[in-house]
């Protein structure tokens, strides 16, 4: 059976599947539940300095089986309350990646510092929420800002820092390279794709916020493109996310260059048991496709490159 363990910025994961930020990650019990169901670890809900209620409902719209639109508005209990939740998951042994957001580099550094103190293994910077004004996407679409934020956080904490970037950009590689220059240990791609739903009968936008972010199967090709592009140019590992609901989806991300993957919307479609299914099916699917291990599949769809052009990618 193909080995599926992953090493990511020094963190050993029992499989490549992490719970994506914003799904199930607001409470400690849920983070624990995702791990119990089979995930290798969990990214927390994006946490900010203060509690935020998020946008009013409707906050989600679903498109049958191919997609989901949401504008939650970054609800979160605030970094003051959140250590309690982290504690519950940490005590259960869940490998945790603390997601944080803020409006500028200083804000990021401060909330990241507090998040790091809770004992998470790594941080993920949400530089990419497509619908929260002043929080994320504006910062996250300017490479100079991305570099500044990442550098500020890397300077403030002792644990690896991942930068989560937006697909709503002309040039994802510029954002990834900026994160790398800033000292990021990995880049996570992608967040949701800016989108909107209209109800013709009610003559209005469906979500209370208007604009939202598309997730689920429809964005898998979009995420694969970004991961592909990042893998070509970055030396740090890429974490793939967007539309993964089967082991084959995950393998496609690996082939495009993802060292690990995150799963979000599939939890709404299949329940958290999706992590059990994914981790059970992965070895068999790798075997069937002739890959001796997950690590072997990472980047395998890219044409062979000059050995000198980038650092070697070990595995698992």
């Amino acid at each position, binding site marked *: 059976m193909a080995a599926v363990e992953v090493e990511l910025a020094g963190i050993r994961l029992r499989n490549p599947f992490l719970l994506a930020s914003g799904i*199930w990650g607001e409470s400690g019990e849920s983070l624990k539940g995702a791990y119990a169901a089979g995930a290798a670890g969990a990214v927390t809900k994006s946490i900010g300095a203060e509690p935020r209620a998020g946008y*009013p409902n*409707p*906050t989600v*719209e679903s498109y049958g089986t191919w997609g989901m639109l949401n504008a*939650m508005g970054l*609800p979160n209990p605030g970094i003051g309350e959140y250590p309690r939740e982290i504690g519950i998951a940490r005590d259960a042994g869940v490998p945790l990646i603390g997601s944080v957001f803020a409006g500028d580099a200083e804000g990021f550094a401060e909330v990241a510092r507090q998040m790091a103190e809770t004992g998470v293994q790594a941080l993920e910077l949400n530089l990419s929420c497509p619908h929260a004004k002043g929080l994320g996407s504006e910062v996250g679409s300017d490479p100079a800002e991305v570099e500044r934020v990442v550098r500020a956080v890397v300077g403030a904490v002792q644990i690896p820092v991942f930068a989560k970037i937006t697909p709503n950009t002309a040039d994802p590689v510029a954002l990834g390279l900026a994160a790398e220059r800033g000292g990021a240990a990995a880049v996570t791609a992608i967040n949701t794709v800016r989108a909107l739903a209209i*109800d013709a009968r009610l003559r209005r936008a469906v979500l209370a916020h208007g604009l939202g972010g598309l997730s689920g199967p429809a964005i898998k090709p979009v995420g694969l493109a970004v991961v592909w592009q990042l893998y070509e140019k970055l030396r740090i590992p890429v974490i793939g996310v967007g539309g993964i609901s089967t082991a084959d989806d995950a393998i496609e991300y690996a082939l495009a260059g993802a060292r690990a993957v995150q799963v979000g919307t599939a939890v*709404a479609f299949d329940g958290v048991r999706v992590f059990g299914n994914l981790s059970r099916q992965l070895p068999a699917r790798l075997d069937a496709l002739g890959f001796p291990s997950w690590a072997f599949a990472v980047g395998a769809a890219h044409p062979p490159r000059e050995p000198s052009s980038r650092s070697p990618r070990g595995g698992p």
Partner: protein
Amino acid sequence: MRTVVPVVERIVETPSTVTLRFDEASRARPGQFVMVWVPGDDELPMSLSYVGARKGVTVKAMGATSRGILEISVGAPIGIRGPYGTAFDVGARRILLVGGGSGTAVLAPAAEAAMARGSRVTAALGATTATEMLFEGRLRTAGATVELATDDGTAGERGYVTGVVERLLRSDRYDVVWTCGPEVMMQKVAAAADLAGVPVVFSVERHMKCAVGMCDACTLGPYHVCVDGPVFPADRIAALPEFAHRKRDPSGRLVPT
């Protein structure tokens, strides 16, 4: 999934409670809820008080949004997502139903379904005052034995409905107790039923956003009320520290109930 339908009937049930009926074809089971969207305002979870093709929700005036729902007139369009969540198992033979206030809304269709299958239903209904008593007539018409309690004694016993429940549990045998109302009330009902050795099923409420088990807004211990609930065997949740005492606000913070 989501549909927009006109309100086809509006029934004033009590001074503070209105039922809105609408035609929506999905299959729903008693206990399940829908997300009701009042265009331009919020979208709220509401248990189905009628589960057939002509569905209904029975709404009590609370904050601004529920008051807004109350004022919706016949013909106005509302958005409906669902039905979502777990349902009552209507196979039990002798059922004690305990409704506090608008909690009776979700119990009534379950009671009707059970009685249609030959079950015997006794309903203990509580309200602040006689005019606020919900679905007393509906349950009697369906064949239930109904016992009442009001805070001010204007109907049935004076005091909490839990007193009535204790008496009923002593005087008769039941296979199951279904209850929906304030969580402290449900906890007391569970304690009494425990003594009598009768299993209890709760219908509970938590703040809801996605309603599809994704956003974590509705967590209650290890459960997500939108998919694991709202109907739960009491023994899974009654002892959780987050039950009756605390709930999560829209930011996910634990706050006192």
